[in-house]
């Protein structure tokens, strides 16, 4: 649960910091006249995506809390970790490629943009395919294990893959436009970069929770009650 | 409107004072819970009556009449500060006794005797420690026709436990009991209104609650956590006896070892329609 509370506290801090700059202590009845409100910067779509991702982040934080409450400490009976290391690498690659695509778009390098987008899409598909293989192994061995680690793997990675799949639809649209050679940069590309970064970060936390990784100790400390 | 608000305030107080529906006479040591409840009644009752009467006054006194203008009064830090402080005080006056009593509630006295209640759809069974004074191990894996509570046949401490299946639970007067609770299927709750204390029974866990019976008699126990279609019919009885009567009752009960030997043909765990 502490990860959830920490996450909420983090969101609360962000919200609180923003609220503090909104002059909540002003006495509005004394201040008739024109005034300029200070909205959060950035295009609405980016803010909307950020709000959505805040909710998605909490969704996965709650899943880690559920995992920690349900699965006995130390249990990590799961598919071949080498496969999952590989898929993790692919997701990192996809995220990097998207950053490169963003840079390419800013510099107007069309060929590099197209290549980077294709690499990102391919790496993401590779990630999903790898997860699919892991699923197959797991389903073959059955889900009825009383420690529920396998069921959690399916549930957590399934939800994560669904989100990534939704992102792929957006990435597809961006890629298609890059190939139709619109001259102006696509604002949706920046959204894809943000989305992939967040889903990668979420995945790294989930990976640390589900498998034995160098950062698993940290994740366990955060998720499990003392 | 104002008149009706006054009627609501006074009517609620009158109903409170005259209502024939009040808590059941207490039969355990948790009189302190009742005291906390009464404190809460006093504080909230005063606040409720006061505010509703004040609203009634405002609605009457400041009703719209031609030419009337409302006061312009954005805020009053002093008034708001005072109200906050008084509220905080009132809240503390309810919370402090509540937490003190809760402190007693969660700390089981060392001399409390253990009793186990096992729930399943839609009936209760009970287990009391045998001559060794402690309850033996139990697990749902061991549940069988001749072992309805799943006691561990290998555990010597379990074999002398007294198993009561399909009869009332008896408790001795004036002795603290720690009630351990298990459930074989869904969430139940063992609730005797006169004891005030209650706790859910969660399958896969052992929960507990403690109290000291302070009055002899037969009390009705109900399930108080919705547990399926016959939830409302899941009832039982607890009998509080003076020590000698309790002793002789206990001596008549069968231990697990005897129970296992005497089990009849397969008995289904089924519901009364």
């Amino acid at each position, binding site marked *: 649960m502490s990860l959830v509370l920490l996450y*909420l506290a983090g969101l609360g801090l962000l919200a609180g910091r923003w609220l503090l700059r909104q*002059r*909540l202590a002003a006495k*509005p009845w004394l*201040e*008739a*006249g*024109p005034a300029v409100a*200070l*909205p*959060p910067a950035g295009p609405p*779509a980016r803010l*909307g995506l950020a709000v959505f991702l805040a909710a998605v982040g909490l969704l996965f934080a*709650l899943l880690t809390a*559920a995992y920690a409450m349900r699965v006995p400490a130390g249990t990590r009976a799961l598919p071949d970790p080498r496969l999952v290391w590989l898929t993790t690498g692919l997701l990192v690659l996809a995220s990097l490629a998207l950053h490169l695509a963003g840079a390419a778009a800013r510099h107007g390098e069309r060929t590099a943009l197209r290549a980077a987008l294709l690499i990102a899409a391919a790496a993401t598909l590779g990630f999903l395919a790898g997860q699919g293989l892991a699923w197959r192994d797991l389903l073959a061995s059955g*889900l*009825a294990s*009383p420690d*529920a680690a396998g069921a959690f793997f399916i*549930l957590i990675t399934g939800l994560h893959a669904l989100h990534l799949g939704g992102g792929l639809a957006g990435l597809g649209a961006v890629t298609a436009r890059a190939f139709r050679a619109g001259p102006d940069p696509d604002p949706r590309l920046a959204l894809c970069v943000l989305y992939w970064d967040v889903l990668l970060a979420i995945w790294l936390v989930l990976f640390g929770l589900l498998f034995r990784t160098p950062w698993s100790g940290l994740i366990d400390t955060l998720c499990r009650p003392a | *409107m104002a008149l009706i*608000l006054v009627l609501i305030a006074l009517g609620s107080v009158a109903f409170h004072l005259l*209502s024939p*529906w009040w*808590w*059941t006479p207490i039969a355990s040591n*948790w009189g302190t*819970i009742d005291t906390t409840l009464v404190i809460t009644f006093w*504080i909230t009752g005063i606040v409720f009556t006061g*505010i509703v009467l004040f609203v009634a006054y*405002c*609605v009457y006194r*400041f*009703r*719209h009449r031609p030419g009337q203008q*409302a*006061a312009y*009064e954005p805020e009053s830090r002093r008034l*708001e500060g005072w*109200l906050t402080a008084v*509220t905080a005080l009132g*809240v503390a006056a309810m*919370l402090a006794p509540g*937490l003190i009593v*809760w402190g007693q509630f*969660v700390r089981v006295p060392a001399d409390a005797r253990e009793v186990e209640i096992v729930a399943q759809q839609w009936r209760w069974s009970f287990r009391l420690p045998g001559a060794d004074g402690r309850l033996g191990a139990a697990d*749902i*894996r061991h549940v069988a026709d001749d072992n309805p509570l799943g006691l561990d046949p290998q555990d010597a401490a379990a074999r002398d436990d007294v198993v009561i299946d399909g009869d009332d639970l008896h408790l001795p007067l004036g002795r603290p009991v720690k009630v351990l609770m298990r459930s*074989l299927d869904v969430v139940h*709750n063992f609730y005797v209104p006169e004891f005030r204390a209650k*706790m859910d029974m969660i*399958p*896969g866990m052992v929960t507990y609650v403690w109290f000291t019976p302070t009055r002899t008699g037969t009390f009705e126990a*109900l399930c108080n*956590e*919705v547990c399926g*279609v016959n939830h*409302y019919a899941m*009832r039982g009885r607890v009998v509080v006896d003076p020590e000698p009567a309790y002793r002789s009752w206990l001596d008549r009960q069968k231990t697990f070892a005897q129970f296992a030997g005497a089990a009849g043909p397969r008995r289904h*765990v089924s519901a009364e329609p």
Partner: protein
Amino acid sequence: MADAHLGTADRLPGAIEEGELYHPRSWITRYVFSQDAKIIAIQYSSTALAIGLVALVLSWLIRLQLGFPGLVSFIGPSEYYQYITMHGMIMVVYLLTALFLGGFGNYLIPLMLGARDMVFPYVNMLSYWIYLLAVLVLVASFFVPGGPTGAGWTLYPPQAILAGTPGRDWGIVLMLVSLILFIIGFTMGGVNYVVTVLQARAPGMTLMRMPLTIWGIFTATVLALLAFPALFVGALMMLLDRLIGTSFFMPAIIEAGQRLRHGGGSPILFQHLFWFFGHPEVYIVALPAFGIVSDLISTHARKNIFGYRMMVWAIVAIGALSFVVWAHHMYVSGMNPYFGFFFATTTLIIAIPTAIKVYNWVLTLWRGDIHLTVPMLFAIGFIVTFLNGGLTGLFLGNVVVDVPLSDTMFVVAHFHMVMGVAPILVIFGGIYHWYPKVTGRMLDERLGKLHFWVTFLGAYLIFFPMHYLGLLGVPRRYFEIEGLSFVPASVSGLNAFISVVAFVVGAAQIAFLVNLVHSLRHGAPAGPNPWRATTLEWQTPETPPAHGNWGASLPVVYRWPYDYSVPGADRDFVPQNQPGLTRAGAPA
């Protein structure tokens, strides 16, 4: 910054210019698949009220059984549990949440903030259609074999998915699917509301010039975005337990003498997830009600809301605190009892900002110029019922007092008073208040007063005495209490009385529906601002507001929303978009 000139340079990132707005081309895209927040609001409200009627009928059937057990033969225990489950779930999620956020939120956020529409109109439209799908899936569960689930609205496992509970085959599956759909749909709407409030406000509309209605809806939306994921996770895990045999919530279980395949699961985990959603949910319903009632009281008492800043801070504080009180629903759930100290303390602390809100409403009435219009009657009714329900909350939040009362009729009376009756009175008040803007016509006042008095007094008569049944120990969710030795015979008389009043209150809603439909054509023309209110929605160039809300140019906001009875002003209200001097000593 305060003196910066207002030009296109200050245009907020979310502000939509008239030309950029989506323009419907046909009747279908204008009224059915509309992207106009006002139409979506009406769609949300009508759907919510329609499904609410189903829940009202269910409550009649429940009261029929409780007041007159055995009178009708078709209500058996299975049906009874199905009725209470569906009544609760519909009222809390599909009526209250949808109506406050989807209905009032969609209509009022753009209009009160001076925006042309929501920031993402297309997503907004999708949100409604997914909500409708969720409602249809829910309704479908009445017609599947075995009927809807009877697990209680809390859907506690293992019970909810075992054979001993009605609707185990189909009902629970449809319920969980419907909830998941609802959450997806709501998230789309919620993102929209948040971004619109943050980025699409009219020039000059600072946060501290937002009406409290918007503060309430905004904070509630943020809470909902953070609370619904917990229900989503819980529902999904239970669905997997039910359909593919996982054991997230299912420990080793013996059902009807048979060991089930499940093992190791944690029923309490579900309760944590459920209440992590469930408690903020109370405030998701309450905060919009708080906001709306503040505006109703201020407008109809012709007086500025007392302590506006405190009201804003209280809303934010309540919203934040509502995430650390959830386990007060679980004092007797078998969780670690030491949690009780923490959760009782946080729960009682939350009473303080709530109490401040009540004081400020009452102090707004004091020295006001109170017009007892229908919306005002409902607002005062809200204060009384909310006060009553809030105070009984202090019993249940104080851990040790909760022990004897939990899961008794006291709880039923408490939450109906505080999050049933009180918010619904606000919904009615809000509808009487804004109907003239939505339709251009007034609702009939005499019918409205009849509706108010029967609903308010009736609801009080139903739920106030019910507390005493709980005090006596009458448990909730009992199909019948026949044969309980500690229950005196007089209780059945009280139950019959409560049921009769419930039938009357339910019937009074017909007057409301008749009023809604009849006034659509025959109501008195309202004009643009019948209540002489200051907020922006009353200053639209057209009534009802046209697509795009504001004609050629957006309104500019010069003042806070509560300039009523300002000394020295020529009228007793100064609209938010009126420039110029307002009062001595405060230069514009």
